[in-house]
């Protein structure tokens, strides 16, 4: 039996991918950048992108986050607001709207993602204000709630992040992104530069949040420990290309490509 096309569920059939990237290329010349990247991200999935420094991981993420314009390729995204869209062809107004409501971007350096002179509450509330929230009391309540969910002391809501430690800044940056309950979180080395115990705590938090909020995430890292803890699937990049792709356990336990093998072999035994 065939159904008429109109009765099919539209944007968010469960079997429909959230993000589908095809042939994404951003060439900075001299071998830098990323070339011909294709992958699919499913709802609720965390995809890790690993590789050495200079493998093109961050370029790829910058393109998806709108911080760089790709030379070629497309990325189809199933939007809550606008239905299925191709993100590189979106108007600036729509792209920015998506970026502050349905997407989050966590920078390695929290200073890039935070307003350092504005209080923690103002940082968390900014996206809500951009989305039209004009009630101070409710801004305050939601900021407090999100600080607590990221295990930040609610008493410090009026302190600027310049007075926060590195780990706290990173958690604040995540709170600032999650407050609008995005569907897609792009993370660039979220645990980079933090000491190991702080990393562990942040990863625990992230795992709980991502599962609890039914988020999908693309996580760029060079730390295979982070991948093992958080990611469902992993892409291995080298020289701007994807050289291996698979389930996390499969890639980490039985790497096929020589580059993946080198990466896995380089994990320090503890």
């Amino acid at each position, binding site marked *: 039996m065939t159904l008429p096309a109109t009765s099919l569920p539209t944007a968010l059939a469960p079997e429909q991918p959230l993000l589908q990237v095809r042939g994404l290329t951003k060439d900075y010349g001299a071998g830098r950048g990323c070339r011909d990247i294709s992958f699919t991200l499913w709802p609720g999935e965390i995809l890790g992108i690993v590789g050495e420094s200079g493998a093109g991981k961050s370029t790829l993420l910058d393109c998806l986050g709108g911080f760089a314009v790709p030379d070629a390729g497309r990325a189809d995204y199933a939007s809550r607001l606008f239905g299925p869209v191709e993100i590189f062809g979106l108007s600036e107004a729509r792209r920015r709207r998506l970026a502050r409501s349905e997407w989050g971007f966590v920078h390695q350096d929290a200073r890039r993602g935070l307003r350092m002179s504005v209080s923690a509450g103002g940082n968390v509330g900014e*996206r809500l*204000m951009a989305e039209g929230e004009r009630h101070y*009391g409710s801004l305050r309540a939601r900021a407090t709630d999100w600080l607590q969910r990221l295990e930040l002391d609610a008493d410090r809501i009026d302190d600027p992040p310049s007075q926060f430690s590195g780990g706290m800044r990173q958690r604040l940056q995540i709170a600032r992104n999650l407050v609008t309950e995005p569907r897609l979180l792009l993370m660039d080395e979220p645990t980079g530069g933090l000491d190991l115990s702080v990393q562990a705590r942040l990863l625990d938090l992230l795992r709980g949040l991502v599962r609890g909020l039914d988020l999908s995430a693309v996580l760029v890292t060079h730390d295979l420990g982070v991948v093992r803890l958080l990611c469902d699937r992993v892409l291995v990049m080298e020289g701007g290309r994807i050289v291996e792709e698979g389930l996390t356990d499969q890639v980490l336990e039985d790497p096929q490509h020589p580059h993946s093998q080198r990466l896995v072999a380089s994990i320090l035994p503890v």
Partner: protein
Amino acid sequence: MTAMDRAAGPRRPGYNYAFLDEATKREIRRKLLKAVAIPGHQVPFSSREMPMPPGWGTGGIQVTASLIGPSDVLKVIDQGSDDTTNAVSIRRFFAETAGVETTSSTRRASIIQTRHRVPETPLSEGQILVFQVPLPEPLRFLEPRESETRKLHALAEYGSAYVSLYEQVARHGRIAQSYDYPVMVGARYLMRPSPIPSFDNPKLDRSPALLLFGAGRERRLYAVPPYTSVESLSFEDRPFRIELPPRRCDLCGATDSFLDEIVADDAGTRIFACSDSEYCGERQRAQGLSVVAP
């Protein structure tokens, strides 16, 4: 009649009418038309060197120079007063270069150039109020890049403007900004009303007069056409409020005007007097007092 009132007279020879050359005045008028057509939108213009430093009202002077004609009556105020240095020299500048009639009367003036105040006497149709603007960009507090602020204006993304209000409430328990209070013009563009006290913001809303803003150093013009809505930003649960000390003017007894605190003698005696000198003088005259300038 006071010292500010001077009939139209001969112009100083050797200068073009109102100092600026005709091509420059035409360019400014063209940009002003654009500014009026897009209320609250900042229009770039080729700000000229003026015979005074930027920061002394070069933007306002260029706007006035491009508009003024022989039949105009000019009033110039600085902090509400007709007889402060800046007001006196700008008034004399136009008396000499354009030969126009000058006045201290808000009612009689056809063009009023102002720094930091809106006159207390309500304006009427046909009048033009020219503001001197030091910093035209309302989003500068949170966004240093000009390319980005233009984008934010184009897309009407004004969430970040509320961040600074949020910070004030978080820090002081209320919106503490008492001057240069940001406004939405025609429910579209966010605008800095120049450093007028927030006390004056309600006077901008649906004003029958044309409001023109000139920023000389930053090379921007913007405008609020008559009867355009001008709404001060606020939170739903922290509405815009004017806060004034419960004082009356010690000279004229006014309770509804913006007061300056003035040290009156060497013993440190302080009086509160209307910042609008013409309004205060009028009220003193009406009460049969001998007029004291604040």
